[in-house]
């Protein structure tokens, strides 16, 4: 039995049904809210573990809901958006959402995202500020300032190392370009995105060697990057 409590915020009944049916089938506990205000009320009163939030709500903008919830809670929020424009997702992620799903999405995808988020929660709870980060073959020793792939030490430039650490500390969370460039360069302007692409490409080449290497870093076109947990 899953102990995880999920708040589903969705104004469209069929989609809400689809989600709740899926959650029920996989033994998640859940509560529902049909608009922004009741979502905030639910979040405050029931203290859910994960929030699934539709961005197009009748009474207020989903981004605003995120901002309001983030005032007091760090609960993981996965936004669901039917909008084709990336800017909405980016705004939501920048406002503090952890992940996103674009409608139409498959049930498998939804479950996968929930798994990722749960793992991240678990990690957050017992690791916090650990000195060593491990993900599959990747091992980062923050104290030494070194990264290893298997037994081998990775030869990273300072910038690549910085990026790797940033992604590792936020494993499972989609980091927007803006967030990354702000964190790494302290600024965010257009040319940084070009640099970021190059550094990411070289980092990935060093990290994901060979055909059968697992994928550590996902590229989210037009949005950002995410480090995924590798089994």
């Amino acid at each position, binding site marked *: 039995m899953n102990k995880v409590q999920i708040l589903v915020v969705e104004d469209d009944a069929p989609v809400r049904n689809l989600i709740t049916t899926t959650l029920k089938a996989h033994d998640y506990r859940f509560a529902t809210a049909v608009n922004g205000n009741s979502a905030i009320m639910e979040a405050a009163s029931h203290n859910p573990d994960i929030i699934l939030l539709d961005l197009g709500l009748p009474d207020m903008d989903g981004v605003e809901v995120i901002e309001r919830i983030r005032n007091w809670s760090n609960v993981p929020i996965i936004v669901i958006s039917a909008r084709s424009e*990336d800017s909405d997702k980016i705004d939501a992620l920048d406002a503090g959402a952890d992940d996103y799903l674009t409608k139409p999405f498959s049930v498998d995808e939804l479950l996968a995202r929930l798994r990722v988020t749960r793992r991240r929660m678990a990690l957050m709870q017992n690791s916090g500020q650990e000195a060593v980060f491990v993900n599959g073959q990747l091992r980062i020793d923050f104290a030494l300032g070194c990264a290893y792939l298997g037994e081998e030490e990775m030869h990273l430039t300072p910038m690549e190392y910085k990026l790797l650490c940033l992604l590792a500390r936020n494993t499972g969370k989609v980091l927007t370009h803006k967030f990354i460039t702000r964190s790494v360069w302290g600024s965010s302007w257009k040319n940084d*995105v070009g*640099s970021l692409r*190059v550094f*990411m*490409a070289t980092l990935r080449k060093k990290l994901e060697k060979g055909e059968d290497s697992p994928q550590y870093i996902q*590229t989210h*076109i037009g949005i950002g990057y995410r480090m995924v947990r590798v089994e």
Partner: protein
Amino acid sequence: MEKDQKGQLKIFFSYAESIGKTAAMLKAAQGQQAQGLNVAVGCIGTRASQDVVLLLREFDRIGPADKDGLDLDQALKKRPDLILIDELACSNGQGSRHRKRYQDIDELLKSGIDVYTTVNVGNIESLHDTVADITGIRTWERIPDFVFDQADQVELIDMEPGELIERLKGSEEDSVFTMEQLTALREIALRRCADRVKRLARRQQKSGFHTDEHILVCLSSAPSNAKIIRTAARMARAFNSQFTALFVETPDFKAAAAQDRERLRENESLAEQLGANIETVYGDDVPYQIAEFARLFGITKIVLGRSAVTRKYFLGKMPLTEQLISYVPETDIHIIPDQSTDKGYRPRKAKSLQGLNVVENTAKSGCILTGATALSLGFYRLGFTEANIIMVYILGVLLTSIVTSHQIYSLVSSIASVFIFNFLFTHPRFSLVAYETGYPVTFVVLFLTAYITGTLAIRYKEQAGQSAKIAYRTKILFDTNQLLSKAGNRAEIIQAAAKQIRQLLDRNLVIFENADGHLSQPCFFGEKSSMEPSFHMDKELETANWVLKNNHMAGAGTDTLSDARYTYLALRVSDRVYGVVGIEAANGPLDAAEHGILLSILGECALSLENEKNVREKEAAAILAESEQLRANLLRTISHDLRTPLTTILGNASSLISNGYSFDKETKRQIYSDIYDDAMWLINLVENLLYATRIEGGRMSLHTSTELLSDIIEEAIKHMGRQAANRQIKVIYEDDMLLVRADAKLIVQVIANMVDNGVKYTEDGMTVTVTARKKGNMAEILVADNGNGIPDKEKERVFEKFYCGTSKIADNRRSLGLGLFLCKAIVEAHGGTIAVGDHEPKGAVFSFTLPLEEVTLYE
């Protein structure tokens, strides 16, 4: 729309004071008020009789009761249904918006308020002289005839003259008129009413209002001219004919005194008020110019004053009428007596020949005369005959007339020449006595020859000046035309017009455009320093606004808001106002000719603005039509293509609901995957449609950033449907780390569409290869399949909208035909190119290019 809302004007008309117009008006208004109309009193004369005062109590009053005038702004604000205004012909006080009350009333009518008003027969412009002749009283309060004629209703308030005299006997104001006078006035008033009714009836009968008659009156600066104009106007009305007022500007006019110019302008505006078209021609020979004009414009009657007929001309020229008759024998000429008011009037020249000019011209004449004398003395020494000396002096006078600016110098020179010749060269020398009998003749001939030569030269010069002036104005008009036709947009049109007006008038200008019924920001043209600070007065803006709203000129030099510093004219094509032009009036008002040309320029400018607007609207409509067409095509195609997958989904789902239990596992799995596939197909369709909506006016809007090409390609392949699972998709990077400037989402769509295309037209197990490489300063992406390829004749068409190849798609499903069209639009919006070719040994290759991006690394 405007016409429907315009208020109705009713005039209560009588032949003398104290007949009871005002009382009649108030009684009529009482009736209206009883019917529920909101009636208000605008203004009623102060010396009202007892019954009027009683009646007045029943109505609201606009503005304070003690004020005599009409508070126009208040009236426009309160907007009663009907407003009562006494004394239509009254003039407004200083500082009012309009000079005359009828202009106030016009504005009220335009804003949809009905007006009742009163007027006396003596106040009608064209009847003014007749009435004044009878009563001996001239009134300055007059209204143009059109106000009377265009009133919606005129009610004649009549009373027997005897009764009137009887009635007034008791009161303080005894009748100032005799029985005969009153009877005559009554007759005029009755006839004027009858005339108006007749004209109305005639107007209703036929739309072509004018008869074949065309009456011409000549304008002059004489005070008596006004009477002639009024007479001509009455004739024009009587004949129901066209009416033109002509001014012949002679070279002398330049030197005319200011008060003459002023009077000419007054006469012009009088003629205009009486419905005349004002025309100006230039020339020295007045009768010839009139005749030419008459012939050109088919004038049937010419009206002249008697003074023009009897005026004596130098050297016994024929009188004007005689000459006119000889030039245009087929035209009627009417001569109006006007001498009574015109005793001894002669057009005066402006007094001051400018000081500097006098000195300069005198010096020039003196020098030439001295030179001629010196030369003659030389000839005399050499023993040349007197004829040579005379020739030298004639030459001298001719030269004088050429270099000086006034006839007086050649006249003085001629006389001086005669005396010097007499003094120096005739026997006995050095005296003014001449013994030989032939000499007086010689002197006279010398004088006449010198003078006439000089006069001719001056006239020639003046005519050259005149034609230069005409040519200059023609040129300005021509240039205006050229400039305006070249101007592409509104700003350019206004620039061009402003430039031309500046060239014509050399005054400061301000132009406002009409921005949806409001004034735009003013554009100033001219010397900046001298106007902008003085301009930002509310008065100017108010005036310009008034012009915009009322489509009538106003400001300095007009009757409306005349305390503005600029004169404002509307830029209009009939009733559509495109802007307002203000012209600085600091150097006095414009003369008629300038005004005429200005109006032509403004007219052309407005026409250009209208054309520009039409073109713009047409283009917008065309674009709209095109996108409407595109949308319509899309909708048609979509609704057709949506039906197929929706039918399968619906059918499958309903059979699962109704008898899902009876299907075996395999059948169920087949149904599920069918539903899944069709849903996927729909999703792809929707994605493409979403991108199609981003095409506006044939262009796609992009949100580009620097992207790694390999990221894009991987993303595209990740999104391939289940169909692709049965094909091999191979990705080859010939060059590493290709960075492009692109809208990632759109390029993902391009690659996805191309790969999808490749998948669709190939069989299971075949390969689709995606290759990325550098090509010059572009990145090239190739998508190759080893299917059947595309026939050459179809290659050109595959990128067209809604084009679907003739070859069968593997799964028999029709494609929307939007994919490749979209690809082309997207790639071209990125500045790249798209192509299709043949793959060796078989299959098709789609390729496109994208601009590469250089990146400076920030460590």
